[in-house]
């Protein structure tokens, strides 16, 4: 009667938690360091991070994990803080922070009460919604590319390019290594879903540099949000950036849910053993 967690549902969690750090300040920092060659450093970072995911193991909860409660808790507070800043900057300028934090925590607490099975199911559903929206976004933005903005290639120093890919790898890998603890055999699904995530991040870098040019995209605080402002269907569907940034909201929500679930699992493991 009780069904187990399906592999693909658990794998879809990694799609969201690896993107969360990029949306808060990853895009801005990598653009600042690698300038025009952010595409090349993200390509290198993407390939190396996929290989690292293959090699490093994912186990179930053990005694060593109690050491990590404090870093995970700090990560959780950081996510709430950056979500609050993001919403106050973009959507609700005059509302008080307490209200925003209270309502942001409502679904997180609700889902952690139900456990990891609900988190995997919800993550799979949100993944399907996000893929449909991404097709909608990229289809229109591809017509506005100007390839001249990408040149000159390889004009930044090699040190900066490698530093950029290093930052990419750290932003990508750290949440999954820290938070995914299971005894399912999900290697194949992890590779598939992390490739999805990598491809989308690389495409966003490409679109940012080729549509805005490197000088303008460096100064944006949230570059992916400003990218959505350019979507324009028939001069009627404009300004849909508020609707299409559900990707950011879902990533932040799922990362908070997984962190809180990790803390809850480790504490129950220690109480019953």
């Amino acid at each position, binding site marked *: *009667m009780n069904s187990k967690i399906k592999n693909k549902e658990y794998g879809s969690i990694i799609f969201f938690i690896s993107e969360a750090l990029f949306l808060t300040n990853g895009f801005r920092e990598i653009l600042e360091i690698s300038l025009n060659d952010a595409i090349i450093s993200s390509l290198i970072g993407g390939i190396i991070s996929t290989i690292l995911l293959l090699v490093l193991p994912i186990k179930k909860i053990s005694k060593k994990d109690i050491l990590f409660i404090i870093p995970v808790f700090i990560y959780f507070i950081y996510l709430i803080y950056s979500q609050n800043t993001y919403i106050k900057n973009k959507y609700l300028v005059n509302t008080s922070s307490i209200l925003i934090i209270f309502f942001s925590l409502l679904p997180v607490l609700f889902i952690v009460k139900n456990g990891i099975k609900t988190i995997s199911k919800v993550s799979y559903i949100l993944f399907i919604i996000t893929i449909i929206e991404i097709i909608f976004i990229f289809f229109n933005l591809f017509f506005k590319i100007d390839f001249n903005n990408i040149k000159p290639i390889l004009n930044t120093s090699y040190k900066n390019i490698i530093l950029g890919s290093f930052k990419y790898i750290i932003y990508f890998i750290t949440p999954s290594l820290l938070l995914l603890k299971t005894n399912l055999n999900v290697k194949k699904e992890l590779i598939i879903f992390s490739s999805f995530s990598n491809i989308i991040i690389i495409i966003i870098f490409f679109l940012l540099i080729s549509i805005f040019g490197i000088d303008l995209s460096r100064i944006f605080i949230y570059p992916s949000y400003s990218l959505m402002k350019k979507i324009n269907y028939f001069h009627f569907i404009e300004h849909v950036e508020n609707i299409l940034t559900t990707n950011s909201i879902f990533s932040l929500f799922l990362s908070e849910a997984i962190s809180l679930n990790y803390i809850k699992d480790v504490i129950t493991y220690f109480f019953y053993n």
Partner: protein
Amino acid sequence: MNINYIKKLKKANPDLKIRIINNIYIIYFESICNMYSINEFILKPLKKNIKNLPNANLVDIKNKEDLLNNLYHGFTIIYYKNKFISFETKETLNSNITESSNEKTIKGPKDAFTENYQTNIGLIRKRIRSKDLIIKEFMIGSKSNTKVSMIYLNSCDKELVDYIDNNLSNINIEYVVNSNSIINLLNKEKYIFPNYIMTERPDLASFNIIKNRIIILTENTPQVIILPSFFMDYISNIDDNYQNKFNILITRIIRFISFFLSIIIPGYYLALTTFNQETLPTSVLINFSMQRESIPFPSIIEALILIITFEILREADTRIPFVVGTSMSIVGALVLGDAAVNAGLLSPIMIIIIALSSISSFLFNDNDIVNSIRIWKIIILLLGSILGLYGVYIGILLLIIRLASMKSFGFDFIRR
């Protein structure tokens, strides 16, 4: 136990008749016995002094409980030489098999379950003629003694069958009015969405039996309960099996979209016009702004007034008798449509939005689903009026989490 006990019963029950023929006492309840069979098969032969009475159902009575049980079920008791025998002479007090009034069909069979227990079982046996069909009967209700049965195929999940079996045997209730009382006792968690199906159609019931589910039939109720049920069952209809597959795929997509549309649209419209006005194109914005020029209410109050009025209309529709119906529907249309807009109290666009959302929710024939859509609609509307688009997203997340964590008798609610 002798005949004096029965003569005492006659004081409280004026329809208990006692006839005496040749020292043989004939006792029956006139309201539930078939007079024709009593006359033909009992009184006539006794008058002609024939000793062997032709009847298929003859029971020897041993104690007081059996005597009362048989009397209340419509049997005739014969008392002769200190022995009680009972004959089956039950009157059938039910309607014929007619068309279902709540679940319409275009191409399928038009018969529906009735209040008679044996007829219902017969309608199912007509469709599944196999030895794998298992029927288990229970007698529930200490004072009402209603027959409740559980029908399933041999290949059904053993754990589920044992679970329902145990729970039905342990029900301790005095009266059973209809199937709803039973399902409330079986269902441990209280959800807003229903996790069982109640239907009047035998083709839907037999279709579900073949899909390894359990059916619960109650006496005197034309609705049977199907459990467990999943989200896809509310999106699909039994009529889909009688039509072209590719067209039905598109219809199912439309139903799926209308489910979410009817929940999200009022809150979404409210968030777009009061918090994030830049999402609307400029010409649309001017049009909406012109319509709101003289309205004295804020948008959220307007939306709540309209939703409550719609629900009042819908509830009144089910209670009003048919003869008075037409003039009241004209009054309803006038109140909501013309008069409110002309008086400058409501804006036309809000009426369109709320009407669209209500009509989309009528696509589902189960009343429980329509009521649960109504609650979620109001939750998302309130969240949208506090936090705008972000509030609507939080409401959508809450809805998805609720649907993903629901269980229907041990199975997950959302499954392929």
